[in-house]
């Protein structure tokens, strides 16, 4: 589903060029769940950005499904994202001026879906927010906001879901509920899940761990169990 070959990212800094990722090689199968782990500054988020086509590598290739992201321009990559990808972020990234329902409808509307309202409402019910459709993000708790974000990510039934520290802004109990929800939907929808996290507990629920250190993969480890 996802393939990266000899992927590198180098940025120019005042102190000279800085290699953030070096020669990354990986493949992720359809329906697989993978956690990218590592300390701060190890290049986790950069790798996620490259795999999701949010950024271009300095060298190497990235394939999403059969699309060569490294060969596409920004609009081309946007179309691929629209077709295949969903996102969940640490800071939720909900639009403050839109209600929970409208936030979830947004990706459907961008795709000109026929009945965005019904689909969005249904998914919000599934994440337990059926009673809060008309609430604005600031009227919701952090956990509720992240559930809206998860609903928004799954509403287009993406083939791949990228999640960046999805529990980073939540307390343990709320984080646990959100993780349960994420993995449940992932399983139900048959989605490929790639997540970046510090949270060992969260990482342990993935089928595979990719450990980054100073921009290199050190040990692709099979996780002990799946959720």
């Amino acid at each position, binding site marked *: 589903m996802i393939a990266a070959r000899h992927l590198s990212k180098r940025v120019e800094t005042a102190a000279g060029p800085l290699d953030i990722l070096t020669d990354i090689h990986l493949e992720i199968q359809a329906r697989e769940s993978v956690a990218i782990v590592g300390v701060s500054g190890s290049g986790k*988020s950069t790798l*996620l*950005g490259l795999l*999701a086509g*949010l*950024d271009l590598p300095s060298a190497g290739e990235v394939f999403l499904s059969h699309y060569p992201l490294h060969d596409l321009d*920004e*609009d081309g990559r*946007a*179309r*691929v*994202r*629209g*077709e295949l*990808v969903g*996102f969940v*972020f640490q800071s939720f*990234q909900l*639009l403050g*001026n*839109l209600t929970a329902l*409208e936030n979830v409808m*947004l*990706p459907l*509307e*961008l*795709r*000109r879906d026929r009945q965005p309202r019904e689909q969005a409402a249904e998914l919000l019910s599934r994440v337990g927010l059926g009673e809060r459709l008309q609430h604005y993000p600031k009227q919701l708790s952090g956990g509720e906001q992240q559930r809206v974000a998860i609903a928004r990510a799954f509403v*287009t039934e993406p083939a791949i879901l990228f999640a*960046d520290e999805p529990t980073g802004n939540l307390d343990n109990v709320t984080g646990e509920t959100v993780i349960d929800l994420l993995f449940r939907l992932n399983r139900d929808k048959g989605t490929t899940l790639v997540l970046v996290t510090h949270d060992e507990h969260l990482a342990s629920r993935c089928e595979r761990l990719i450990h980054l250190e100073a921009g290199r993969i050190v040990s692709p480890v099979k996780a002990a169990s799946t959720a």
Partner: protein
Amino acid sequence: MIHFPLAMRLLARNWQSGEQRILVAALVIAVTASTTIGFFTDRLGRGMTNQSAGFLGADLVLESSRPIAADWLVEARNKGLQAIETLEFASMVINGEALLLSGVKAVQDGFPLRGEIRTAAAPFAPDAATQALPLPGEAWVAPRLLTNLGLQVGDEVEVGAHRLRITRVITFEPGSVGNPFGVAPRLLMRMADVAATSVVQPGSRLTYRYLFAGHEADVSKYRAWLAPRLGPSHELVGVQESGRAVGTTLQRTERFLGLAVLAAIVLAGVAVAMAARRYSERHFDTSAMLRCMGATQRDLLGLYLPQLLLIGLLASAVGCILGWVAQYGLLYLLAGLLPVAPATPHAWPALAGFATGIITLAGFALPPVMRLKDVPPLRVLRRELLPLPSRAWLVYGAALCAIVAVMWRYTDSWPLTLSVLVGGIALAALLSLLALLLLSLSRRFNSRVGVAWRFGLNNLWRRRQSSISQILAFSLTLMAMAVVALVRTDLLTTWQAQLPADVPNHFAINILPDQVEEFASSLQAAGVVTEQLYPMVRGRLVKINGTAVQKSVTKEERSDNALNRELNLTWTTVLQADNQILTGRWWQPEDTGKPRVSVESKLAERLDIKMGDELGFSIGGETLSAEVTSIRSVQWESFRPNFYMVFPPQVINQFPTTYMTSFKLGKEEKPLLRELVARYQAVTVLEMDRVIEQVGVVFRQVTLTVEYVLVFTLLAGFAVLFAALQTSQDDRLYEGALLRALGGSRRQLRSGHLAEFTALGGIAGLLAAMGTECLAWVLYSEVLDLQHSFHWHIWIIAPIAGALLIGAAGYWGTRTVVGRSPMLLLQNQ
């Protein structure tokens, strides 16, 4: 791709959060200002064009100071033209004890040959066109004549020795356009009644107008026949000449008001740009999120541009409606001064105002909003990522294009557009530099002031780019207002100051030769001190050293007033007290009867007349030649009878002569005028105090109009202030919260803001005072010919007014910063 429903939903939600209010308000101001002036000038312009032939009252008009040869009229009728005669003169009109100088026009049947008179039953009642004329024994009068004399329709007035009953009020009359701001209100009467007034005597100052109308070809033929026969006292005016004069006046007014509106539009544009930039920055995250969800650049444009367009359409529509209402205010302020009734409003000024709104929006808001499509999607992971800043040439280029497009509409001339643009940029640059200097100077006081002022002054310096643009906006507006107010008060007080207690304030002209002694003794009997009585002969300067004056002078000199009208010529042996011989010598007994003339020095300088030159005059159809034997300086401001040309006795006394003098009358002595005018019907008394009063009224009205338009500029200035406040709102909220968390009180925070905006307003006021002083100096010395003195009060009033106005507005604008809980704010951050 346009996502219209989604775009509208986002727009509605953003609207509720108040994000676009400043942008909309600024646009509304720009469109309102533009539409108001658009409606005003369009209605006036069309009012004038509609009545273009009607203005003149004929296809061709021949003006003359005396009756023309009878065969000229016969020839006109032979050529198939209609021809009628009108007579105009100034005369005192009397009602009981009240009297008023009026411009009397006597007409014959058939007047006007073209166009129509409009009358009303009472002053300010609805008017209508009429084919009728006053009947013998009746008069139609301008509204002002009624109000000034305390009369009503149906009352009687005296004109000379004759009583006329007022039956209608005139609102428009062809042929009166030459002097729309004229001082003497019109009285229209029958030619047949003129003899009974006894006003018209040999030597009286009269204007005969002969009106001709017919087929175009016949008019041209007659014009060709007439042209070689015209003398220096004749003037031929066709529809084209009349239209041009009117057009120029209108164009000047339009340009003048246009500049004020332009300033309002540019300031509003700056506010729009600031607000749009803020709007754009607040939507970076949304754009990045939408990009993640697969939105392409076109999708983003399809989301944001319809929102911007709808904002533009709505704001422009509101502006058009407000402009339509505001034009009535402008017309009301200028009521009574307008040469014609404004035409019914057309739609196009609204369309033009609408276009101004869209152009302003496109020029100032499009570049920042276009940045939204370039937000990198990676921003969802790395907040610090920003789209590339809009290229400077794009931002300034778009704004410049918008300004030039709008400006061109007002100036209608590329050179003027360019010079205004270059001048404006230079002025803005200079003021910015001065503002920066003052800001940096103000920092020097930092260590000597309290914490609130330090906080305020630091804020100004830290956001100096935005501070300077606000200072610029307000200093320009305050400056324009101050200059207008200054010129108004200074002109009026200067004129009044030039009438000190002992200076004559009345002129009596048209005194007949056989009444001279009697008139003088009547004044003496009443205890009124008069100047000498001067004989007056009307004649035109036609030749200098044998060459026709129009050929011997340059093109600029040709337009000299002294060449284009009849001069008052006089003779005397006594040199006026305030005159001084600069070269040559004053009359000796042996000069009597010799063709010699003494010339006023400034006229001599303008027309390059030197000692010994031979001047040719046309007087009553005869010519007379005289040698220049002296050049005199004259104090025109003395309000004593003064003359360009003074002859020795017995040179021009064979021509029809009247006499003039000036005298001083106190307010309590005014009833004497009534007696004088009743007794000497031909005499016209010019009450200079009334004239100055009337000029003052006109002047106040005109300056009020300019100030009315400047209010838009001031509002646009406030839009800039609030846009700047909005831009810095997040920073301010954070700072405020931090200061309060560190133990600062609300009061301290409030004082800080108050200090900041008071300082901003004070600096803007100080700059405005500087600018006003410079501008006044140039205006006074170059245009108005007034003595320039230092206006110390402007240096006090402008900074205080600026500080109060902007201090209060800024205080109000930052109240939310103070009102929020510090805890909440820190959590939000």
